[in-house]
Structures are given as C-alpha cells and as structure tokens.
C-alpha cells in the first residue's frame, strides 16, 4: 500500500466518521447551517494538507476542532461580518410561538442554546460535543481550568433558568 493511498484512506475515514460531529460543533459555533458546512469543508481541506501532524488517531477529533475554531476566527478576520454573530441573531421565542414543525423540547432547548452568551456556549460545546476535559478546554481557550469550570457550571445554570427550570439549587451551590 503506497503512502499516498494510506494517507487518502486515513483522510476518507476521518471525513466519514467525524464530519457529522464537526458540523454540529460548527453549527453551534456560528449559528448558520450553510456557513457551518463551509467551515467543516475548509477544516478538512486544511487537515488534509497537515495530516502528517496528526500523531494519534484518537486525538483526531480534538485536532480537527482546533483547526475548525481557527478557521472560524479567520473567517471573521477575513470578512468583517457579513453574517451576524449568533448572539445578535433574533431568535423567536419558541416557547411562545410553538409551530408544528418546531414543537417539542428540542426546539425550545435549541433556542435557549442560541441565546447563551458565547463565552458560556463554547466551553459547553467543547465539553458536550467535542468530548474535551476541563483542562483541554482551558488550553484551547487560553484560560484557567477553574474559569472553565465556572463557565460550564454557569452555562448549565443559565440554560435551566432560560428553560424555566429555575433550579434554585444552582444558585445555592454557585461556584465560588
């Protein structure tokens, strides 16, 4: 098996197994389906060029998410936003206007996630979708692990409040 074939096979396997996860991450990062698609494609094209840098297959997802985050940041540098930041997107309150196609708990939670401040949303995405540990998130975001823990705690707390599940316990057990 030639090195070229081996590289292509490894790349195909990565695309087939991880493009869905990357798309979900990109979607919640940018809030736009088409843009998320482009981001994932650009991420994999960059990954193809740098595939030699990937030492362990187990680390592939984290590696790709790192590329994707950089690509997302680069996109904002290149095109001073022609698209809105997710925090600026006017998302209708689906709790008040539940349509047949969006009815259900998922749609309500999604609307709440969109409303979450990016500084809370991103660590949460990294943990839940990316499978990163607090220490890994801290390295990626260049903040302390304690700050990550606080943001994760508050992200869940805020979501619960937005979802009307006030969770008084959360306030009682607020991180110091």
């Amino acid at each position, binding site marked *: 098996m030639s090195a070229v074939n081996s590289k292509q096979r490894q790349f195909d396997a990565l695309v087939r197994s991880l493009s869905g996860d990357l798309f979900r991450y990109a979607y919640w990062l940018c809030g736009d389906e088409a843009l998320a*698609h482009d981001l994932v494609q650009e991420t994999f094209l960059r990954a193809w060029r740098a595939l030699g840098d990937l030492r362990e297959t187990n680390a592939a997802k984290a590696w790709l998410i790192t590329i994707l985050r950089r690509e997302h940041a680069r996109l904002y540098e290149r095109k001073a936003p022609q698209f809105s930041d997710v925090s600026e997107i006017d998302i209708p309150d689906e709790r008040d206007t539940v349509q047949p196609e969006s009815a259900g708990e998922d749609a309500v939670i999604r609307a709440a996630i969109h409303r979450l401040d990016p500084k809370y949303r991103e660590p949460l995405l990294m943990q839940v979708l990316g499978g990163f540990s607090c220490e890994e998130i801290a390295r990626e975001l260049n903040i302390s692990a304690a700050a990550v823990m606080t943001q994760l705690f508050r992200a869940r707390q805020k979501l619960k409040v937005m979802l009307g599940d006030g969770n008084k316990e959360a306030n009682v057990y607020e991180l110091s």
Partner: protein
Amino acid sequence: MNCLEFRRQLGVDPLSSGADFVGHRQECARCAEAAARAVEFEAALRRALNVAPSTQLAESILLAQATQQQRGRRIWIRRGGLLALAAMLVLAVGVGMRVEASPLSAQAVEHLRGEPEALTLSQPVPAESVREAFAKRGIALRHDVSGEVVFVGCCPMGRHPTVHMVMPGNTGPVTVIYVVDDRAKQSEDFQRDGWRGRSVPLGNGTLILLARDSGQFDRIEAEWRTALQG
C-alpha cells in the same frame, strides 16, 4: 466529597465518573436525586445539540479534496509539461519531426472501437453510479439526467480523463463521452468512420456524442447541459 462539592461538580460535569463523585452519589439520597435530574437534563441537551448535517456532507468534502488535489497535480503537470515541451522542441528541431495532435473527435471514435461491448448493454445503471463516476472525476452533477444510462465508466481517452456512458434510444445507442480536462472552442457536428458525432464545450470540458444516427443529439445535449450546468 461533601454535598456542596458534589453539586458544584454536578453543574460542571454531570457525567463525571470520578471516584469521589460516584461515591457521594451512592451515599447521599438527595444528591442522587439531583444527579438523576441533571443526567436527564444532560440527555435533553445532547439531543438538542444533535443537529443533522446534510447527507452529502462527507461526499462533498471528499469531492472538494479530490478537486483540489487534481488542481495541484495539474499545476505540477503544467510545470513538468513546460520542461517536456522544451525537450520535445529541441528533439523536433533535431530530427525534423512534426507533432500533430489528434482531435478529440478522432480520439473518441478510436476509444469507441476499443470498447464495443458497451453498445450492447441494455440494463439501466442507477443514477447514483453516474453521479459517482463524475464525482471520481471531480465533478458534481447538478441534476441527474432524465434519460436512461446503460453503461458508465471512468475511462482514459488518450491522455484525457473522461466519463464514458451509453444512452439507449429509438434509433440506436448514443455514446456520450465527457472529456474532463479539455474544453472545445465551439460546438461542432462531425462525421468520422461511419459515425455521426457532436462535440460541445460544457463546463471545463467537452461533451462528445457519437451514434449512427444524430436524431437524438439535441435532446441528449440538452439533458447533459442541464446536468452539468444546472
């Protein structure tokens, strides 16, 4: 771990498997209840985050990568080609050789001679196979052709990569060859070795139709124009 520490950890990572965390949950009924609620919330959160990508996402990424690679290879070939051309010119001058390129129409007829069995097939191939053949050549079809295709293959035609197909018709089968990397300057009908043909510049390449009778060329050309250009 006490209750306060447990609840903090619960908010940070409800699915934590740390020994202290698990131990406290087993000992404290109130915290176990809180943990059950948190796990339920976590499951709902994961469900909500689970947005589905387009079913074509992986294919489109692989296609983009193949196209990019092909472009890179072309640049390399072009650079190499310049050196080769220089060498050929020196050689041509030296031995008085004349280099004459064979036109695509002649190469298509020649290619047809090499694969006569393609014209005897009658079982339709799925539209997906046609899309895949084009995808292998780095081309995403915008639409499927409405007419039947009974043969599809990724054939080299001389130095040109092509997609070779056969479409049946009332007046006999029509061979359709899409030459991926060479765009004719203009459409033209031709006759060669008993075959009627048409070559049409489409996209970055050339669509060549060959048949004993040209009656179906307009319809088939229109179908491929739509399939390739939308």
